[in-house]
């Protein structure tokens, strides 16, 4: 049993961090190791775009739903959804009203939660369930019983969104949220389903000469990270220091074969890789 020490007016529990300042670099460094326990390494996270897929309605969404009903039999997965055009409208109104960044962050999650409910309605007969945040640790139950959890993508930073670096919008969006969700659970790969064949060096919707990145290492990509991105900038900076996620793939959901190929481990769309020192 741990001992208590009270020789300086404070009552301490004996531990390697007892009495230490957790801001002290010399102390923090001691908690560093190359390995980290992987909680659910066999699960794949699939993120479905809001504006890119949901806002296109039935024609875009149903083939993806169909693909998922097949894929889920073979691959344990968690699905996340984006909010799309309603998020953009929310942000436009909120910025005009002058709401603080944290207040804006508090608002946007509701729009993607609506998309999660839409998707759940379509997949319910195949065992889907909208995962509430407080049910985080029920994920193994869902996976083990062959259910199909649909997670809320926006991270719960809410009113406490840190001041952004280069503008008023919250930096921690739904792509970032899904990335952290996968990383904290020790997942190795994430597949984002969008409406382009992957990540280009500039926005292909505006530039006909945009070039696709087919397969690239994260470090190489960071050296030439485009100004216009298909995923949150915050995802790339968080990935630099991550311990588990090895592969982020972006596929075109308007061509459902790409999703099938990606789930089978094949290269399709854009494949970004990072060699990690590994979980245990």
């Amino acid at each position, binding site marked *: 049993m741990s001992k208590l020490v009270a020789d300086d007016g404070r009552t301490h529990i004996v531990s390697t961090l007892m009495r230490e300042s957790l801001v002290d670099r010399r102390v923090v460094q001691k908690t560093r190791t190359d390995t980290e326990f992987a909680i659910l390494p066999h699960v794949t996270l699939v993120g479905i775009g809001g504006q890119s897929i949901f806002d296109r309605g039935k024609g875009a969404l149903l083939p993806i739903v169909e693909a998922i009903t097949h894929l889920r039999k073979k691959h344990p997965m968690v699905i996340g959804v984006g909010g799309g055009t309603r998020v953009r409208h929310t942000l436009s109104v909120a910025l005009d009203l002058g709401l603080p960044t944290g207040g804006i962050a508090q608002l946007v999650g509701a729009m993607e939660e609506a998309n999660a409910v839409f998707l759940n309605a379509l997949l319910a007969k195949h065992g889907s369930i909208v995962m509430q945040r407080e049910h985080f640790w029920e994920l193994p139950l869902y996976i083990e019983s062959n259910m199909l959890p649909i997670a809320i993508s926006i991270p719960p930073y809410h009113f406490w969104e840190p*001041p952004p670096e280069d503008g008023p919008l919250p930096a921690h969006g739904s792509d970032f949220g899904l990335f952290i969700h996968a990383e904290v659970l020790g997942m190795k790969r994430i597949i984002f389903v969008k409406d382009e064949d992957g990540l280009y060096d500039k926005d292909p919707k505006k530039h006909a000469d945009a070039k696709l990145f087919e397969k690239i290492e994260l470090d190489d990509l960071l050296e030439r990270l485009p100004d216009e991105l298909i995923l949150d900038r915050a995802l790339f900076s968080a990935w630099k220091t991550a311990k588990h996620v090895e592969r982020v793939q972006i596929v075109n959901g308007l061509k459902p074969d790409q999703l099938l190929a990606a789930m089978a481990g094949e290269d399709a769309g854009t494949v970004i890789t990072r060699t990690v020192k590994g979980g245990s």
Partner: protein
Amino acid sequence: MLERKTIESTLAGSTLTSSRADGFDYTPEAMMPDVQVLKIGGQSVMDRGRAAVFPILDEIVANKDKHKMLLCCGGGTRARHIYSVGSELELPTGVLAALGGYVPRQNARMLQMLLAKHGGIFMMHDDFEKLPLYFKLGCIPIMTGMPPFGYWEKPHADGRIPQHRTDAGVFLSAEVLGQKRAIFVKDEDGLYDDDPKKNKGAKLIPEIGARELLARDLPDLIIERVVIEYLTRAKFCKELMIINGLVPGNLTRALEGEHVGTIIHRD
């Protein structure tokens, strides 16, 4: 048939992958600028027990009709024990952040019990929007200092302990409320150039700019590093004041706006 069904808005075509919002002249409104956010230290105050806590609560009660105070609690030695056990088990930072959240919540509940007869009310993050009600009723709202990031806390290069802990939560609460100064009640007279508990020769820094402080690259600080970084780009909360709550009267003077202890300002 596969066209996007969009709502017309300034950001309709935006990828939203960065914080930039072209086309807006953004002027944020302060939500509750008259609320003073106070951090009650975990290791520095709560773990000292009655001898330290009671005089501070007396000062809070004496000031409650004059100042709107939101109390946010730190963790302390039990949080250190959790981080120590979690690090040894090699659990991810996000799990440590979620677990570390339990301790400041316990501390907030302790303060609520002690302040109940004076209107102390325990609140969760989800109750944040009820703050106007609590103040209208003359309550003293008390919550955890930890931000709600939990499992979504970012991993970082320097080790396993979450970067956003209770100092970050206090600063971010003050920032979103539109308060210009957050007050951190600790057991030292302010910020020193090294840990004064270990180095007797450490010198007090009465006032310093955030960028200047980051540039000095001190091995230890009295406040979480991310808070100093965020201070450099805050919209509202432009000062942090670190005071010694063990000295009677310091808290009252701080609430009155006097310079007590150390001020770290946006430079």
